[in-house]
């Protein structure tokens, strides 16, 4: 049995092939925009010359924290509310490395030639980038939480979190700039940008750059009902994420006078979780568990049979 590939596509082929579904694109751009916001606000509150110029430290700090919530939870929630199959296939692709991937990494070639090891939907560099993004989202989130709630952790741990958060930011900035260069500037790789904006790339380009990739079927039109359902699922998922954040803050004993913490508390002040300070943490825990369960059930119920993108 031979696996169908794009290898037989001719150079004059002007047709398009789907590379990224709507779900993958929305998740990507949500993470990209929140990253940009985090990088700008982060630099503005940590670089003295910039800070002296801009000021508004507390406002920028709140913008940083609010962006962080969407940076950490947003892409996952989009993936869950949309086409989970496409995202899971990408994750699988990034997880699996062939010997050819390792050979490619040893001698990366942005414009593939006859001796370039064949690659699938993602080449080894793109796989590394995806692993780094996933890792840095985790590490930024963890160290950021410790910095946010710094009085709740031992001084040494906070110090360490600060060092990791800062160094990782500089590394991520370098990776980000490299990514933007390859996606928007470099002649050989910039056709990929069309795929992340509109979903499709030229078959001819894909046949040279992603020889082993089969291409995905075209996605269906986005119906209003599916869009509303996905948006509603995203909101419901956000509520679960904020409840989890709040439950963590309750466990840490956080002070809700912080503006963003206060906002999280306000959004999660569902009936029976209000006024928990008077009734004790135990009451909040039970109520939060109830709400998380109810929202989770709602999610599963709404997901049944739902597919934003048509199946093959």
């Amino acid at each position, binding site marked *: 049995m031979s*696996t169908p590939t794009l290898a037989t596509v001719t150079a004059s082929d002007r047709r398009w092939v789907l590379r990224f579904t709507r779900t993958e694109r929305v998740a990507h751009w949500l993470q990209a925009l929140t990253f940009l916001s985090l990088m700008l606000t982060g630099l503005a*509150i*940590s*670089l*003295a*010359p910039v*800070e*002296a110029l801009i*000021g*508004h*430290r*507390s406002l920028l*700090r709140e913008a940083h924290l609010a962006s962080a919530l969407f940076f950490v939870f947003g892409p996952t929630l989009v993936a869950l509310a949309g086409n989970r*199959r496409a995202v*899971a*296939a990408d*994750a*699988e692709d990034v*997880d*699996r*490395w*062939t*010997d*050819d991937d390792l050979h490619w990494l040893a001698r990366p070639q942005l414009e593939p030639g006859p001796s370039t090891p064949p690659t699938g939907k993602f080449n080894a560099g793109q*796989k590394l980038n995806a*692993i780094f993004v*996933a*890792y840095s989202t*985790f*590490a930024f989130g*963890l*160290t950021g939480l*410790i*910095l*946010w*709630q*710094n*009085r*709740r952790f*031992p*001084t*040494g*741990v*906070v*110090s*360490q*979190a*600060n*060092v*990791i958060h*800062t*160094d990782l930011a*500089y590394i991520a900035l370098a990776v980000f700039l490299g990514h933007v260069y390859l996606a928007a500037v470099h002649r050989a790789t910039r056709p990929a940008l069309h795929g992340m904006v509109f979903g499709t790339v030229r078959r001819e380009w894909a046949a040279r750059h992603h020889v*082993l990739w089969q291409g995905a079927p075209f996605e269906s039109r986005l119906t209003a009902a599916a869009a509303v359902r996905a948006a509603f699922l995203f909101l419901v998922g956000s509520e679960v994420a904020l409840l989890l954040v709040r439950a963590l803050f309750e466990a840490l*004993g*956080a*002070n809700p006078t*912080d*503006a963003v*913490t206060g906002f999280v508390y306000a959004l999660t002040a569902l009936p029976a979780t209000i006024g928990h300070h008077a009734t004790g943490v135990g009451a909040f825990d039970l109520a939060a568990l109830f709400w998380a369960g109810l929202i989770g059930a709602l999610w599963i119920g709404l997901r049944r049979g739902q597919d934003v993108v048509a199946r093959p």
Partner: protein
Amino acid sequence: MSDHPAPFPSHRIGRAAFLGLAALTTGALLAGRKLPSAGSLLGGGSNVDGFTIYTIANIPEVDPASFQLHVGGLVDEPRTYSYHDLLAMPAVHETRYFQCVTGWSVPHPRWTGVRLWDLVAASRPISDARALHVRCLDQAYTESLTLDQARQADVLLAYGLNGHPLSRDQGFPLRLVVPGMYGYKFAKWVNHVEVVDRVMPGYWEQNGYDVNAYIGHSNGV
């Protein structure tokens, strides 16, 4: 996904790499409980004497010849001090671990200055006095101390750090030094010390930081 079995022999590397990196990071965080921090490769901001410099407005440019420190409010005798008046007073040295709420620290900063309480006491606070309200030349930053906190002998208005006059970004000419409290209490460019009848939360305290800033004993941000 099992829909499309990989057509070529492959190694499951991605998830392992992610988990390995995540475990490494968590380990490094936990190691912070025991080990001193290695220090950032590049630092989070401009680094002066080991301090990261934060400001909320412009860094004021101060002419020491015309600088005046005002001590007033609920006192019998409001007073004004020139920079040279302060230099002429008995100098006090204080060396104590400096800790910022954002995580970085300076192990042995050596402050030189005058005792805050000497200045306050000289103006004789009236019986209603409960706290100090400190204002700064950047027209933006404020801080607070209760009188009991301000009475401690190690609380200074410092004009020197590590044997040198304060630099502009470190608060020249005068910086509040409250050993044992988080760095945000160390207001820079201080020019007003006002005695008041209740604690007036300072700039960061209005933004959720603790009014009582003793390291390890204050509540969360």
